[in-house]
């Protein structure tokens, strides 16, 4: 589904990703861990197409095509979804309106009929249960004045509605209380299908008790320095990152 090869990316003159290679197949869950500032969010943003990062070399092939040639909105229309580490506020635009616009634009791009507001509301009501969010949140401005945890839950709601093929969750667990963590993880698991894949960026092994990864990768200083199965996360929890980063 996704094949990243020797990816290098800069911010300004500073190289942040220094040769990442990663293959994600349909049905898989990959966890990416690593110290602060190691480039996890950068990798996520580059996949989503943030214009602030410049890819200097390497390739990203998504469903057999060059992902880097696509605009961010085209990537979303093709089924890529990034749950932001820091979700953005859009004052004056309700969550419901925002999501419906996104949902319909994606449908339009795929040659499907737009959904009218009433039918969409039905869909929302169904999905909002999945993340146990208060319906009133649908009528508030996108993320404006939301608590940290509410913003994260809202990201998962968006994911549930947009039903992506490849979801990247950037520290969606940070800032969640233990109940919310369970709810969010439950939501993610519910959305899991054999034909989609998930990349979870996290600092905590705790989340991986709920969302069980097939692979765990350690990112340090812009490179994947170690990959393993789910037990690697336990090892990291016990020993920290030093033993890997030093060995690398």
């Amino acid at each position, binding site marked *: 589904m996704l094949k990243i090869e020797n990816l290098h990316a800069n911010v300004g003159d500073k190289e942040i990703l220094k040769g990442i290679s990663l293959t994600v197949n349909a049905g898989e869950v990959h966890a990416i861990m690593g110290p602060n500032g190691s480039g996890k969010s950068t990798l996520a943003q580059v996949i989503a197409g943030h214009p602030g990062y410049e890819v200097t070399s390497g390739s990203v092939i998504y469903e057999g095509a060059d992902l880097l040639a696509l605009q961010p909105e085209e990537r*979303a229309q093709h089924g890529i979804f990034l749950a932001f580490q820091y979700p953005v506020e859009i004052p*004056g*635009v309700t969550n419901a309106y925002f999501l419906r616009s*996104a949902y319909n*634009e*994606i449908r339009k*791009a795929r040659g499907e009929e737009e959904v009218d507001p009433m039918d969409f509301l039905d869909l929302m009501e169904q999905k909002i249960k999945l993340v146990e969010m208060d319906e009133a949140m649908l009528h508030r401005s996108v993320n404006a004045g939301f608590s940290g945890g509410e913003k994260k839950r809202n990201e998962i709601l968006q994911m549930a509605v*947009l039903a992506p093929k490849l979801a990247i969750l950037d520290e969606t667990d940070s800032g969640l209380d233990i109940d919310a963590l369970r709810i969010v993880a439950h939501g993610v698991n519910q959305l899991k299908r054999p034909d989609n894949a998930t990349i979870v960026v996290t600092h905590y092994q705790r989340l991986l008790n709920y969302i069980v990864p097939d692979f765990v990768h350690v990112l340090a200083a812009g490179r994947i320095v170690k990959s393993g199965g789910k037990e690697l996360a336990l090892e990291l929890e016990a020993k920290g990152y030093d033993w890997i980063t030093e060995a690398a």
Partner: protein
Amino acid sequence: MSASIESLVNKEYAYGFVSDIDADTIPKGLNEDVVRLISAKKNEPAWLLEWRLKAYRRWTTMTEPHWANITYTPVDYQNLRYYSAPKSVKPLQSLDEVDPELLKVYGKLGISLNEQKRMSGVAVDAIFDSVSVGTTMKEELSKHGVIFCSFTEAVHNHPELVQRFLGSVVPYSDNFFAALNSAVFSDGSFCYVPKGVKCPIELSTYFRINAAETGQFERTLIVADEGASVSYLEGCTAPKRDENQLHAAVVEIIALDDANVKYSTVQNWYAGDKEGVGGIYNFVTKRGKAMTNAKISWTQVETGSAITWKYPSVILQGDNSTGEFYSVAVVNNKQQADTGTKMIHIGKNTKSTIISKGISAGQGQNSYRGQVKVLPKAENARNYTQCDSMLVGNKCGAHTFPYIEVGNNTATLEHEASTSKIGEDQIFYCKARGLSAENAISLIVSGFCKEVFKELPMEFALEAQQLLGITLEGSVG
């Protein structure tokens, strides 16, 4: 801001066509004879000609104001034509008699003057260059005693009302452009809602400039008698032309005791091209006077014109009267807007609200200029002002000029202001959810303008939102 925000292309102005309509025009230039000629063409009573001449004489002693934050090539008032009317317009018995060519023009603008196909629940007065070409739904309105007709008709059929109220809010001597308008105004809309009547449908005037090198000087007079209420809409378009065209209108509103008038404008005059060539100079004086317990509310969405100079104001004359001003002003490319309001608190317990949203894109310059004045006798006056600016890109400008004058220490004034840049992060967030850059901008900007849009009548709100999208189209790559 990254390079992506810089790339500016402009969507074509959809209303820029010129119609080939046989017109009765007068030679260029302005003098007393021209004023007499206009008055004669309209077969006006002597008192109105006198009033025009006084205005003209006053105007010759005045100079064009230059305090606004706008720069433009000076207007040569002797090189303008002050009257142009489609030849086919004669007093009409019914709208069926309107020249089919004119009906086609309005059809192209999305406005049907045909009684059968008219917009439901809206009465329209269509002003083409200097004259009104037709007013719809008159019969329906007259059942309620509401008078809605062209200014010219009102002068003939309701002279006592016109004479009583004309110039009572904006005297001919008010300012340079108001004096000019008073001297040469050719037509406009007139509306009178009798005591206690709630006007059952929206009234609207649609202004269209067609002729070249012709100024448009229309005059609107709205009177809501005691306890009456009315909602009034105004729309405007003009052809694309390389030279600038002058539009100097005057709107006067009188809300007598307990009356309620809501006036909404979607201004989409031709804005000029990307290099700033052509476009309408929009110098407009709009003011209302609210008597005891009355309320006047201005809502404007200003997306067009090369230059906008406009301050819809309210004189809060009566006790407990209310004035509101909700404004969205958008400038793109080389457009300039200097707009805002004046709220003059004279009565006790008077209340005013000002919500101004300025959006600047391209090399546009947007200024909010607002005055809140509390006179010594205005006990317990209250004002709330919120003035927000949004910048799209980094070659544009936003400026605010608030003036506050308080002569009574029981007044409560609140002022909030903010300037924000449309965030690359917001745009990226929307894009990451599948929205195109254009839709992202239009979404973010309409969120920003929400408090104003919700004041607009339903059909207008949608139109305004679309216009905003079109005006800003291409302002972000």
